């Protein structure tokens, strides 16, 4: 059955579905109870599932992640909410030294099916630390999986898959797309999310984007004089470079788009892999359209930092003219 929902509501529905299906699924984070989270993604769940399943945490991210690990060892499937991208770092140590390593350390006897939801990215006119894109840090950590949806449907499907995975999953939610509406087919829930999706077929240039930039890439495709193939990465770890390579084998050109600073952003890894696997297909250098290597600027200037469809078109032109 399908419904029209905002991404925030689609995420809310996924949480509700997961909690109904498995009473070991619990939500844990700052202000997620009565308030429903600062973005209301957990709205109503505290009321319906009670304070033992939707738990307001103290204001400490290392504490949230560190105790979630213990809860998972006890058999729970904690779904954590980090209030904003810039506030995940106090929990970074528990994530990299415990969350990502415990399964390996214990030779598989301990599983940590923990999902960490993180609203990320800019474009909402927020103050410092509220618009960052830290996904590359997590995609560089063996033992973690990283997902990011781009629309209500993938938000719903990917979040359910993240919660059902026995691996720890860092789940990045493109906060500026929370209010975008789209059709959600709840039967698509079980779709394997570790693959990229081709959202639009094209013959001239393959454009890889993820999270908030997918919509921007689609806008660029509408505006471009060339035929762009738009690929929604969805999974940032593992990266589905196979799907990208197949596309580039056809187009011979690749543009990668993300908000995070370019240096050592996801675009670097994709360019390195495709530059190798498609060495003999590429007819132009791979272009990256990314944030600059600077701290996220004050919101009045964020439009100059964020890749927009003009910058994508500029890159498309350069690979076409190469």
């Amino acid at each position, binding site marked *: 059955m399908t419904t029209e929902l905002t991404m925030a509501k689609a995420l809310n529905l996924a949480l509700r579905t997961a909690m109904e299906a498995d009473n070991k699924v619990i939500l844990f984070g*700052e*202000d997620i*109870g*009565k*308030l*429903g989270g*600062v973005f209301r993604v957990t709205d109503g769940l505290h009321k319906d599932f009670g304070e033992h399943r939707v738990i*307001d945490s*103290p*204001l*400490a991210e*290392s*504490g949230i992640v560190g105790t979630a690990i213990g809860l998972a060892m006890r058999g729970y499937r904690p779904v954590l909410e980090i209030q904003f991208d*810039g*506030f995940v*770092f*106090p929990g970074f140590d528990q994530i990299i030294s415990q969350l990502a390593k415990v399964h390996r350390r214990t030779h598989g006897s301990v599983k940590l099916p923990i999902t960490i939801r993180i609203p990320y990215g800019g474009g909402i*006119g*927020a*103050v*410092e*630390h509220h618009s960052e894109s830290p996904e590359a840090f997590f995609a560089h950590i063996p033992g973690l999986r990283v997902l990011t949806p781009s629309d209500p449907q993938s938000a719903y499907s990917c979040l359910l898959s993240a919660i059902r995975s026995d691996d720890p999953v860092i789940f990045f939610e493109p906060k500026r797309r929370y209010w975008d509406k789209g059709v959600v087919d709840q039967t698509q829930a079980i779709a394997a999310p570790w693959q990229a999706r081709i959202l639009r077929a094209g013959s001239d240039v393959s454009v890889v984007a993820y999270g908030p930039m997918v919509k921007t890439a689609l806008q660029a495709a509408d505006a471009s004089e060339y035929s762009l193939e738009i690929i929604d990465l969805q999974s940032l770890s593992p990266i589905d470079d196979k799907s990208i390579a197949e596309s580039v084998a056809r187009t011979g050109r690749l543009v990668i788009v993300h908000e995070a600073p370019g*240096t050592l952003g996801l675009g670097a890894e994709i360019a390195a892999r495709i530059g190798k696997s498609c060495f003999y297909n590429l007819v132009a250098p791979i272009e990256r359209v990314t944030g*600059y*290597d*600077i*701290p996220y*600027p*004050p*919101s*009045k*200037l*964020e439009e*100059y*930092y964020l890749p927009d469809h*003009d*910058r994508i078109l*500029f890159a498309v032109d350069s690979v076409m003219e190469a």
Partner: protein
Amino acid sequence: MQLLTPEGELASHETYSLTLTDAEYKLLYREMVFVRRLDQEATALQRQGQLGLWASSLGQEAAQVGSAFALEKNDFAFPTYRDHGVAWMRGVDPMKIMQVYRGVSNGGWDPFEHRCNTYTIVIGNQVLNGVGYAMGLTLDQSEDAVITYFGDGATAQGDVHEGFVFASTFDAPVVFFCQNNQWAISQPSEKFVKSPIYKRADGFGFPGVLVDGNDILAVIAVTRAALERARSGAGPTLIEAFTYRMAAHTTSDDPTRYRHENDLQNWKLKDPIERLKVMLARNGIADRSFFDAVGAEADTWGETLRASVRSMPEPPPESIFDHVYTEKHAVLDGQRAAFIDYHEGFADSGVH
């Protein structure tokens, strides 16, 4: 600890006392009125879309103005995003505070100019930064001291406790000033604070004091004492200023989802400004004409503030590359050049 009751009566205390000149009492009243006005103007400006966000200091004027009033010129303050009364007392131009919430700057002012750090948003970080500055004062055998601010919610963060450990280890001249406004966004402090906050200091080897955070005289007295202790080399003090967040967490918050109106009503009766006003009047220190004059002054001041915020200039786009590094940086300098070319390209082609 209280020196001024909610009814505006002066009270005495065995350890703490405070006597100020009439001029000082009146100054404190005036400062609190202006800080509240600043808060009201900013809240209104945010509603009108002139600011991106605002974190209100409403109800916390005594804690902020009083503690900062106790500082010497060379002391250093490390405030949070809500401590407008502290920035105000340190002489920070309110327009620079507005810059931060308008999204024009992430800092706004030069911390050294006012010996007041820029606002810290990541909960707890500034506590360690302040302790470090205080450790430097000890190394310099300076007589100055540091005050670092944080909230009740912050008492869950590791950084705050590491700050306690480092400060006690090095007898750092720092005052930990916790404004327990009883809420961390939607979370009431009693939920996570199972023993009064000020009591936490004892376990780290330094004293903790509880003070009525809406009693500006008491706040000044305990903060002065703590600062003196710090200067003397005796080390840190934790002050818990018990107060109340009378507004929403920020302008994007909706408190009706998690707290009751009547709390607010009770605390209105404890209003820090009213309290001092009654005292001033009762003791003939100030009269109607003074209060009216201050009010009128605040009105005109508020108007100019509104006007200047509306006409605040925007920084040039390429400034996003400024001050990332102090020295040349091959990669970033290249990005800046490309950025300028790119936008000039549009300018020429008329696109955009």
